[in-house]
């Protein structure tokens, strides 16, 4: 934007000291003059944009008057993504042109999304932080910037840029223009790295020579020993395993506590584990370490055990750990004298594999949560073991909240390892990289660490593989490497959907190919299409950007309809895959039609579900599954009803549902609503006529929709009527169309359980004879019972008679 425009616009909100001095940092001076005036996007750009324009310099404002920001509005706007996504060209800058600079983004930019922008910064070596501080080099201001941030900016005198200026900065800034401070810091870091690398180098040399010596000695004695592999051929993870506490990345506090606990163990053992000690660990014989993979749990355990003078024995999922083996194989009683008598190098008898167990042993149980089927009783036995162990035990697992880990909760001290941040890992990795003579910039490394979820092991493995081909890596290669290794992680459908339909899923800056998208489907090709189907109506498609009003709605419908068509195509393909033909080779086509294509049409931020305040923004679990099982259930109920009515009615299930049920409802359900208890007699007689039981009545109500919906109906029937209905129904006997096979089975079982017969006798009698009924009815009941099974026509007559009589009887009873 031009200077004059700025000055004209600054009038309303701000008062500047008009001296347009050059920004203190040289880079800005270079960038500013060259920039071209970008087209003003729309008059809607107000406050915030104006702000950007002028605050290259200090803003000394008297009236920063903001309305209290509506959190939901802001969240919604943020989710909605940039207003004119992809409208500006992303410049190709010199590598590392932002090195040493720290950026803060606030407000909404016009064309870049927040993620895109911060990725840009990182790509060129810059740093992005969340909140502005005195160390921030630039703040990139967008529309509706946070008032709090603006205040800080003012206070700390931070330079601000608008989006175009930011892009120009990338375009024009030379490579590696770094100020002294950064240079110094960098040099210092480099020195540190070099020192560490030298250390590594020295250690490696020492080990190598030791190995050579040993080999020589062994070859002299003629003992055919295993050849010790040279260090250079070992995996990086072993080669660079930390050798002292300093080298462990992150989790300093828990590691230290582990060391203290191990050191105090013997003391605590003597005192019988009664004294909790300073940190309360003194009462535990074992420690349970939990945390995600690849952050050094096992390494720390080994290291600390060694440093405390123990001889660590590790048992992990590759060893059988059944109850018996756990009890016999481990020398937890510490009774073996083996260690004393066995000379060095002689296999001991109580060893597991080739591990020796002697007095100073520490048992490390790795992957405890992996104890399963083969290790029957494993966790239980382990727990018993812990209670009587005479050696320290360190248990390691990934997830201690699992049900099967419950027994261990009370007997072990829980120690949680967290993922170390990139900063904690960086120097260690950098020195390794240096030692391996690779060239990887810190920003790329940080991305790698972040992408691998701080899994140091994975990063090391990635690097060692990468080294086979190349020794230096740039930002894009790093991303690529990450992506290559990402496959091994199984994503959940929730994340997959977010990635498929996220605001930038198909935007210009997105570099994923069609294959990448299809790959997402293959993470879980059973569920992802269902999630897609659930989700595609809930987005605000990014493709609608430039439309407005009615036209926008129409366009939206068009996109939705296209997506729905594609999903419908997908179902046809699915039928060919899973139907009788089993064309499994069509899965990729299914991936495109069921998932990628709908995502392409409708990708964009989530629309708010049910207005502000509803809180939930993520994709929801597909209804289809629930609805499908509900349908199966109701279908079964309907089949039951139909087969019972079959003795009277010739219609199929569908006929029953579509034509009989509406009429029967007026005879079975409505009377109870309209007439209450008076109608019960009639209702029951209709039910008997069609051999419907009380459960079928319930099913009948459940099958209704619209005005006959079950919860509406049950609300309308007074509870007194309902209970009277149940009572009345249970009081008398009813014709039964047939007995279900499983009904017999369960009934038999019950009788066997109950044991002595008298109970049943009583029950039957009560059932048979409603107290106030006449003899005649009683006499007929067994008759009815017997004949009902064969269901012949004659019986119908009898049943009717019986009913008639019972009705009369009831009437008589009432009169009495």
């Amino acid at each position, binding site marked *: 934007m031009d200077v004059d425009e700025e000055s004209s616009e600054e009038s309303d909100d701000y008062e500047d000291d008009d001296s347009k001095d050059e920004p203190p940092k040289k880079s800005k001076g270079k960038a500013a003059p060259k920039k071209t005036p970008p087209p003003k996007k729309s008059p809607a750009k107000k406050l915030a944009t104006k702000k950007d324009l002028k605050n290259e310099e200090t803003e000394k404002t008297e009236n920063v008057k903001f309305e209290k920001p509506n959190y939901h509005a802001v969240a919604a706007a943020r989710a909605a993504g940039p207003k004119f996504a992809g409208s500006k060209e992303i410049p190709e800058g010199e590598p590392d042109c932002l090195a040493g600079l720290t950026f803060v983004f606030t407000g909404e930019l016009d064309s870049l999304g927040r993620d895109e922008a911060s990725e840009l910064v990182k790509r060129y070596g810059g740093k992005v932080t969340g909140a502005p501080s005195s160390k921030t080099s630039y703040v990139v201001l967008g529309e509706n910037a946070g008032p709090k941030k603006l205040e800080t900016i003012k206070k700390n005198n931070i330079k601000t840029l608008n989006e175009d200026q930011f892009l120009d900065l990338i375009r024009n800034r030379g490579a590696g223009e770094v100020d002294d401070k950064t240079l110094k810091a960098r040099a210092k870091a480099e020195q540190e790295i070099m020192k560490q690398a030298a250390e590594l180098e020295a250690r490696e040399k020492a080990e190598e020579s030791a190995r050579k010596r040993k080999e020589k000695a062994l070859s002299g004695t003629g003992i055919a020993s295993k050849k010790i592999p040279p260090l250079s051929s070992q995996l990086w993870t072993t080669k660079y395993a930390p050798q002292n506490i300093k080298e462990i990345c992150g989790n300093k506090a828990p590691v230290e506590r582990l060391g203290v606990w191990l050191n105090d163990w013997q003391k605590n053992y003597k005192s019988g584990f009664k004294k909790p000690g300073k940190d309360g660990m003194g009462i535990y014989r074992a420690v349970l370490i939990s945390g995600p993979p690849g952050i050094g749990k096992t390494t720390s355990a080994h290291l600390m055990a060694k440093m405390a003078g123990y001889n660590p024995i590790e048992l992990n999922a590759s060893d059988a750990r059944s109850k018996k083996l756990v009890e016999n194989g481990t020398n937890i009683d510490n009774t073996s004298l083996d260690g004393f008598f066995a000379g060095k190098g002689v296999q001991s008898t109580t060893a597991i594999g080739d591990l020796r167990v002697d007095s100073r042993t520490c048992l490390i149980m790795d992957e405890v949560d992996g104890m399963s089927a083969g290790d029957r009783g494993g966790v239980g036995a382990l727990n018993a073991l812990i209670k009587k162990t005479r050696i320290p035990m360190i248990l390691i697992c990934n997830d201690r909240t699992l049900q099967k880990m419950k027994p261990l909760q009370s007997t072990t001290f829980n120690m949680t390892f967290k993922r170390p941040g990139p900063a904690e890992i960086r120097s260690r990795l950098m020195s390794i990289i240096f030692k391996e003579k690779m060239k990887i910039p810190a920003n790329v490394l940080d991305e790698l660490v972040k992408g691998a979820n701080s899994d140091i092991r994975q990063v090391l493995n990635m690097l060692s593989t990468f080294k086979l081909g190349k020794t230096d890596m740039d930002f894009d290669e790093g991303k690529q490497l990450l992506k290559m290794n990402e496959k091994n992680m199984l994503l959940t459908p929730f994340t997959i959907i977010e990635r498929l339909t996220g605001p930038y899923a198909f935007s210009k800056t997105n570099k994923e190919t069609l294959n990448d998208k299809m790959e997402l489907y293959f993470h879980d090709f059973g569920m992802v299409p269902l999630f897609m189907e659930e989700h595609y109506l809930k987005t605000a498609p990014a493709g609608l950007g430039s439309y407005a009003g009615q036209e926008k709605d129409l366009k939206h419908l068009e996109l939705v309809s296209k997506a729905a068509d594609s999903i419908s195509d997908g179902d046809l393909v*699915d039928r060919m895959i899973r139907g009788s033909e089993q064309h499994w080779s069509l899965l990729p086509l299914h991936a495109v039609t069921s998932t990628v294509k709908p995502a392409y049409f409708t990708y964009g931020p989530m629309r708010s579900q049910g207005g502000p305040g509803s809180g939930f923004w993520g994709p929801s679990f597909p209804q289809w599954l629930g609805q499908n099982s509900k349908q199966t259930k109701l279908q079964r109920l309907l089949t039951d009803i139909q087969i019972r009515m079959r003795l009277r009615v010739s219609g199929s299930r569908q006929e029953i549902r579509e034509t009989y049920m509406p009429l029967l409802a007026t005879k079975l359900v409505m009377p109870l609503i309209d007439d209450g208890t008076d109608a019960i007699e009639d209702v029951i007689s209709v039910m008997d006529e069609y051999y419907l039981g009380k459960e079928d009545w319930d099913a009948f109500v459940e099958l209704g929709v619209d005005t006959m919906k079950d919860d509406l109906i049950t609300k309308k029937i007074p509870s007194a009527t309902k209970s009277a209905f149940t009572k009345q129904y249970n009081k008398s006997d009813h014709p039964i169309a047939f007995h279900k096979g499983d009904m017999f089975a369960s009934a038999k079982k019950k009788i066997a359980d109950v044991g002595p017969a008298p109970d049943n006798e009583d029950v039957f009698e009560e059932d048979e004879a409603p107290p106030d009924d006449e003899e005649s009815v009683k006499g007929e009941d067994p008759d009815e019972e017997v004949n009902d099974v064969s269901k012949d026509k004659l019986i119908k007559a009898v049943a009717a008679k019986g009913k008639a009589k019972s009705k009369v009887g009831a009437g008589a009873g009432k009169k009495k």
Partner: protein
Amino acid sequence: MSLWVDKYRPRTLDELHYHDQLSARLRSLAASGDFPHILFYGPSGAGKKTRIMCTLRELYGPGVEKLRIDQRVFVTPSNRKLDVNVVQSNYHIELTPSDVGMYDRVVIQDILKEIAQTQQVDLNAKQRFKVVIINEADALTRDAQAALRRTMEKYMNNMRLILCAGSTSKIIAPIRSRCLLVRVAAPTDDEMSKVLHHVAKKERFHLPDPASDAIISSSSGNLRKALLVFEAMKMQRPDLSGDLDVAKPDWETYCGKVADAILSEQSAQKLLEIRGKLYELLSHCIPPTVVMKTISERLVEKVDDEVKKQIVHWTAYYELRMRVGSKKIFHLEAFVAKIMMVYKNYTLMGMMDDIDMF
């Protein structure tokens, strides 16, 4: 307290009210002693089952009406337990293999063969063969139908099949060629009114013509529906006079609401709402084709002529897809989305040309 439709169901061929020629032919078939496999087909509510039962009665006497129901449990190759309900008398057995969906072939292979391999036990029976009725024969999978072929020939001595289907189009040709095809057409309006008046006479009241006409027009050739509607109407208005609007079943009104929702607002949000309604209809056992048809009919009633054409076209288009596909809701939803788009486009621009029908 039986419903009229069941109470006044004809039990013998003589009592049947219409299709007299067909009755005569069935009678002579039953008398001939050489009874073939028969495939009854025709729309629902035309009287197929009634005629089957009448024919059986003609064959075996009143004994066939002593029905009993058994539930057979059998295990599929994949170790799933399935229940099949079997309705039988001493002389015949009735199966609905389509109840178990894709496992119907197992039912045909196991149960049918077992029945077919045993001879008639009752020495007093009039016929030496038993009759097996297979309901919803057009819903049988191809595999099941193929399994049926050989059984039909091999066990001709012991058993005759009576298939009951809506139409023959889904029955494979080999089966059709082994059966005598008997079409039971829907009754004409006159025939329906004859039946309605017969019932009215039996119930001892007078049925005025306007009422009869209203019933007939609302039941579209389905006599079962006609009789049920008739009874419902009689319950609502005992005198059967005045303004007779036939009460619509719950699902039909609900489908109507969906149609109204489509016309009231066309947006993704509304579609989401409609999805819920569609799920409800489907989960409550309303067949998806019925849902789509009812909605479409309701839509056609309410829109301008130009849009009608489109709606009918898309209904047909998506109905086909729905029948081919497996997850019905996907196609229903695509249908609604398309209709919304067409309608919105029409209301905004008034022109329909730029939406291509393919």
